[in-house]
Each structure stands twice: as structure tokens, then as C-alpha cells.
């Protein structure tokens, strides 16, 4: 227990610093106490080292004035214990002693003392030293507090990032990219660098990929990926084309994001049936294609502005069409790849990338080679941007199997059969800006519960509509698509004619009749075109496409024949009727071969 004296405090201002005076001489204690009180300090006293250690624990002084030679426990030992017990708290100690030999004074500092002063005491010097020690203590205390705050903040950021990462992971769906013919690299934290990679399949099995990079870093850069991903997946599931999806993302980002923030992005859509790729690219590094046979490398440069800079008035719908052959490889990347720096600040660049892709004898090793070369180039140099890279290998057989699996995997829904009719008239203006296929497919599915038939219906509509638009209204010749130059030219011409379309129309008429065990949907599509010779179609009654490929494959009739129960082209060839029958209890309404 403390005696009355040694814990007596002299309460002045409660915020004024408190000094613990430790001395076995009552006179010395009194002298110091008087000086300190005169200067407005609160004072506590102790008579030896032992009492001092206890007083520190009880009275929490801001500074200790310590004598050396005392009974029970001397000053050196007391200081050792006080400093040891203080932990993170800073308690400066000044020795006040009549010893003046160097060894004693050195021991003062060795034992943990911060300063010393010798008798006789000069009041001014004593107060100056105390002030200095208290100032240091305040600085140290603040530093420790800031460190604590920083570490609390770091913990908080880490926890928030954990939560955000799990949310982003749930939203950034790309299961469709986990396929044998696709490889990609994106760091799990990439979303905080603004990188974005999404993959989905449309109802008819086409693969859609979006790879992008928001400006900036941190949460600000990643937040826009939430609406982007939602739009991408929702529209892909409804069968919208990649250009429509990019347009919608642009519209949304423009309304959400402040000026100066944008998304550089490429969207591609790879047809499960033909293997062709439609590319819309805004502000991204070149997309590279390595041809299987020759190993030669082609580029597709981004034609467009990044997304989110302007509204619809700045969005351009033009795209590149790319014919892919089996074994061709397509590479999409963010500038984290091309701008990866080595120790001397040099960038990896598109040249080194092309070399990495081109040189390799074993094509299946290219992806790993690129990643290794990149790693070697950087050689431990701090990563200033995340590397996001995707490789797609054209493999029509695999694409076909995947789209088949999609069809079988689609859940069954309650199917109700009713009678209904829809007519739609699309004039030149509507044809320029509007893709009716997803809307009509959605309508049919919603009205009729034909969910399990959506891929087939979408494909039928897509084929009929593109025949009507491309060949009927726009007068394009499908034979052009047979060569790869013609293929590109076809789509260039298509975009040009569509943009300049002043006249022309397409009518779509849907008629549904219930039957005993399901129903029959009749689709009628007519167009303003001159038509074509339907005899070509009649020659193809054997349903074998290949024999007559030259004659009609370009118009997709062999596919339509496989999907539909009946298909009739009325003279002069600008009116096509297709009949599609379905049954309640069977996911495969249509047991035709070739599926």
C-alpha cells in the first residue's frame, strides 16, 4: 500500500502534465515539488525505486524525475522496470542526481534514462529539459497513435476488399470461359485495377466475351464493373448481339460515371455454328489472330472510343468480322500486357507479344510461353498494372458439343399451350437500329413457356431474319462469304448498306396453334427484296447440306430444314414460312436428325 504522501497529487489544472518526483531525501522532494508547482505542473512523489514503480502504475505520470541512490531499490533498477512495464506508452525519465562521475551518468542512459541533470539545480535548465522531454513524448505518442490508426485502417481496407472481392467474384461470371479451347489469366485482385473479363453464351450457343479495363485504380475503378457485368449477362441470356450489348453498357456507364472515367473494352461474339467472330473494340490494344496453317499473325485494331465517354450520339455500331478456321488462335489483352515494364522502364510492347505468339513451334504452348516471357521480361520489377490475357482456339466440334449441352441442360418449365398471333413491321429506320431477334424470342418464350425451345427458335428466327435483311432488303450475295476476303467484304458492305438504308421493310408474323400434346408455331417472314429462285431450295429435299453446299448453304436453309418441321419459300422468294411443332413432355420437340 502507498503511504499518504507518495500518491498525493496536487490537482491544479487536470490537463496540466503530471510529474513523479522520486527521491529518498525529503528536502530534495520538497525543492523539486515547489519548483514544479510554481510552473503549473501536477506532482506525485515516491521515496525509493520500489515506490516509484508502483506510483507509475497508479498515478500515470507524464514524466519521472529520478534520484539514483535510494534504499530498497535504486534509480537505475526502477527505470529499467518502469520502461519495461510501460509497453507502448512513452514515459520519459530524467535522472536528478548529485553524482557527477562519467560512469554513473553513462549508467543513467544505459538503464533507459532519457536525460540527466545534476545538483545544484538550475531552475531554468530543469524546466527547459522537462519541456523538451514532454515535447518528445507528445511527438512519440502521436506517432504511435498514427501507426495504430494506420494499422486499423489497413485492417479495415483488407476486410472491405475481402467483402468486395467476394461480391465481385459472384457478379463477374465467366464460367463459360472454362472450356478446353479457352485459356485466360486475370488476377483475383484485378478488379481493383479496373480489369474485367466476362463470358457468356447466347441461347443459340454463341460465345460472347468482354475484356476491358476501367481507368484508374481501386474501388472507384472497379465499381463500374458491376452494372457492366449485369448488363452483359442479362442481354447475352436474351440473345442480344455483342454490338447491342456494348451499346447498352456504353449508355449505362455514360450516365453513371464522372467525366474522365471510362472503360476500354473489346466485345467478341463467336458463332457456334460457323466459327466466325464479330469484334467490337473500343480503346483496347490490338486483338491478335494467329492463323493455324501459316502461323501468320493478323491484327484487329480498336475502331472505337472507349465505353462511357459519351452517350448514344458517340456510339458507333460498326464492327469487324473475322472468319476463323479450326486451329486459329485469337488473343485479347489489356494494356497491362503491352505496358508491362522491365527494370529499366522499357515496355513489353506489341512487338514482343507478337514474337512470343509467332515463334512457338507447339501452338498449344503459346499461352504459357507468353506468360513466361512476360514474367522473364519483368524479372521481378514491381507490377504496375495487372496482366489480363485471353486465348481462344477455334474448335467448331467443341463449340457444337457445348451448344448441344446447353440445350439439354436448360431446365424444363411448365408449358401451357394457347392460341395467339403477333405481327411486326420493321421499316428502314427500324432495321437500321433494331435487332428484333432477341425481343421476339423473349416474347415467344414468355407468352408460351417455350423455354426449352429458345435456342432453336432463336436460330430459326435469326436465319430467317438475316436472309430477309441481308439478301432481301440489302441485296447481298451469300456466295461472297466463301472466301475469307469476301467474308470481310460482305460484312463491310452490309454495314455500309444498312447505314444508308432509306427504303425497305421486313414483316414478321408469328402464329401459334395448340395441339393435343403441345403446339405448332408458324413463322412467316417477308421482305421488300426481289426474292430468289425457290427451285434451289426444292433441290435440297434430301436434307444433306454438303452435296449442295454451293447452292444453298449460304442461306442457312439446310439448318432451317433440320430445325423446322416444314419450310416453304413462296415465289418470287421474298416470303418464307416455317413451321415448328413442339410437345409438352419432351424437351426435344423436334426429333429430326442432325441435332
Amino acid at each position, binding site marked *: 500500500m502507498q503511504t499518504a504522501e507518495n500518491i498525493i497529487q496536487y490537482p491544479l489544472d487536470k490537463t496540466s502534465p503530471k510529474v513523479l518526483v522520486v527521491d529518498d531525501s525529503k528536502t530534495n522532494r520538497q525543492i523539486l515539488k515547489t519548483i514544479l508547482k510554481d510552473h503549473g505542473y501536477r506532482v506525485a512523489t515516491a521515496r525509493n525505486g520500489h515506490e516509484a514503480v508502483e506510483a507509475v502504475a497508479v498515478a500515470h505520470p507524464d514524466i519521472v524525475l529520478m534520484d539514483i541512490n535510494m534504499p530498497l531499490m535504486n534509480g537505475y533498477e526502477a527505470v529499467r522496470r518502469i520502461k519495461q512495464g510501460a509497453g507502448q506508452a512513452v514515459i520519459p525519465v530524467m535522472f536528478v542526481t548529485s553524482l557527477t562521475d562519467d560512469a554513473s551518468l553513462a549508467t543513467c542512459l544505459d538503464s533507459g534514462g532519457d536525460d540527466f541533470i545534476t545538483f545544484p539545480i538550475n531552475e531554468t535548465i530543469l524546466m527547459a529539459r522537462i519541456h523538451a522531454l514532454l515535447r518528445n513524448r507528445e511527438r512519440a505518442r502521436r506517432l504511435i497513435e498514427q501507426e495504430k490508426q494506420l494499422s486499423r485502417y489497413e485492417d479495415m481496407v483488407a476486410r472491405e476488399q475481402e467483402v468486395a472481392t467476394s461480391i465481385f467474384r459472384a457478379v463477374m461470371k465467366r464460367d463459360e470461359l472454362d472450356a478446353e479451347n479457352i485459356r485466360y489469366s486475370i488476377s483475383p485482385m484485378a478488379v481493383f485495377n479496373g480489369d474485367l473479363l466476362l463470358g457468356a453464351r447466347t441461347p443459340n450457343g454463341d460465345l460472347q466475351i468482354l475484356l476491358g479495363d476501367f*481507368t*484508374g485504380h481501386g474501388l472507384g475503378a472497379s465499381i463500374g464493373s458491376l452494372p457492366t457485368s449485369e448488363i452483359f449477362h442479362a442481354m447475352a441470356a436474351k440473345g442480344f448481339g455483342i454490338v447491342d450489348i456494348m451499346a447498352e453498357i456504353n449508355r449505362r456507364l455514360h450516365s453513371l460515371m464522372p*467525366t474522365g472515367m471510362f472503360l*476500354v473494352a473489346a466485345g467478341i461474339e463467336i458463332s457456334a455454328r460457323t466459327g466466325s467472330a464479330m469484334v467490337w473494340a473500343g*480503346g483496347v490494344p490490338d486483338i491478335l489472330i494467329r492463323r493455324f496453317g501459316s502461323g501468320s499473325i493478323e491484327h484487329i485494331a480498336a475502331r*472505337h472510343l472507349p465505353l462511357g465517354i459519351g452517350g448514344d450520339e*458517340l456510339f458507333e455500331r460498326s464492327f469487324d468480322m473475322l472468319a476463323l478456321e479450326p486451329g486459329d488462335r485469337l488473343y485479347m489483352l489489356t494494356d497491362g500486357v503491352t505496358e508491362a515494364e522491365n527494370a529499366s522502364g522499357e515496355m513489353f510492347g506489341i512487338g514482343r507479344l507478337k514474337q512470343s505468339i509467332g515463334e512457338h513451334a507447339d501452338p498449344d504452348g503459346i499461352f504459357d510461353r507468353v506468360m513466361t516471357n512476360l514474367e522473364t521480361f519483368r524479372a521481378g520489377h514491381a507490377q504496375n498494372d495487372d496482366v489480363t490475357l485471353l486465348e481462344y482456339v477455334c474448335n467448331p466440334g467443341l463449340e457444337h458439343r457445348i451448344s448441344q449441352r446447353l440445350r439439354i441442360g436448360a431446365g424444363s418449365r411448365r408449358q401451357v399451350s394457347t392460341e395467339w398471333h403477333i405481327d411486326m413491321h420493321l421499316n428502314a429506320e427500324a432495321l437500321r437500329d433494331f435487332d428484333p431477334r432477341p425481343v421476339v424470342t423473349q416474347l415467344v418464350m414468355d407468352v408460351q413457356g417455350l423455354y426449352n425451345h429458345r435456342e432453336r427458335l432463336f436460330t430459326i428466327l435469326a436465319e430467317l431474319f438475316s436472309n430477309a435483311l441481308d439478301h432481301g432488303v440489302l441485296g447481298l450475295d451469300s456466295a461472297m462469304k466463301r472466301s475469307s476476303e469476301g467474308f470481310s467484304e460482305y460484312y463491310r458492305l452490309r454495314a455500309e448498306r444498312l447505314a444508308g438504308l432509306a427504303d425497305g421493310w421486313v414483316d414478321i408474323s408469328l402464329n401459334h396453334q395448340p395441339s393435343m400434346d403441345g403446339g405448332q408455331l408458324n413463322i412467316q417472314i417477308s421482305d421488300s427484296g426481289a426474292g430468289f429462285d425457290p427451285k434451289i431450295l426444292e433441290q435440297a429435299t434430301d436434307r444433306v447440306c454438303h452435296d449442295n453446299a454451293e447452292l444453298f448453304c449460304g442461306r442457312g436453309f439446310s439448318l432451317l430444314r433440320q430445325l423446322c418441321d416444314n419450310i416453304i419459300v413462296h415465289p418470287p422468294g421474298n416470303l418464307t414460312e416455317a413451321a415448328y411443332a413442339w410437345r409438352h413432355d419432351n424437351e426435344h420437340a423436334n426429333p429430326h436428325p442432325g441435332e
Partner: protein
Amino acid sequence: MPVTTTLSADQKEKIISINGRFDFTAHQDFIKAYKSDEKGEKAYVVDLRNADYMDSSAMGMLLQLREYAAQHRVALKNANETVMEVLRIANFGKLFQVQ
């Protein structure tokens, strides 16, 4: 100074010159260079002769300047090869006069 400005003789056009890296470190100076003008008051020329690098935050700054200039033109001049490549990939020629 990373950013310096000069005015055309008729006071209608401000030339903003960038020196060194054109990235987020230039942000405060770049904004200061045009915020002293009224919004929509002047046309701007961003002289990139001495800019040796440009990143996406700089592109964001240019978009903000474009918004500030409103109906007036914003021209980007004298970009070196590296900077030009960045402008080309982003297709900024559709928004700015790139000279």
C-alpha cells in the same frame, strides 16, 4: 513546371503545354491551367511536344477539359510517337483535333 500556359494574341485560345510525364501527378496543375477561365469561354490547345508519356488518367483529364471547353474546340498538338500511339488506340481523334 509540369504544366505551363500561354494565351493567343486575341485571348480566345489557351495553349496548355505539358512537360514530362502526363499522368495523375499533373492533375492539379492541369486543372488549374483552365479552371481560371469561365466554362465554355475559350478554345484550348494541349501542346504535347514535351510530354514523354501519357496514361489513362491523363486521357480522363483531356475529357474533362473537353467538357469544360463546351462548344469550343480542343486540339492536341505535337504528340510524340509514344503519346500518339496511346491517342490512336483510344481513338481520341474522334473527339479532339489531333494535329
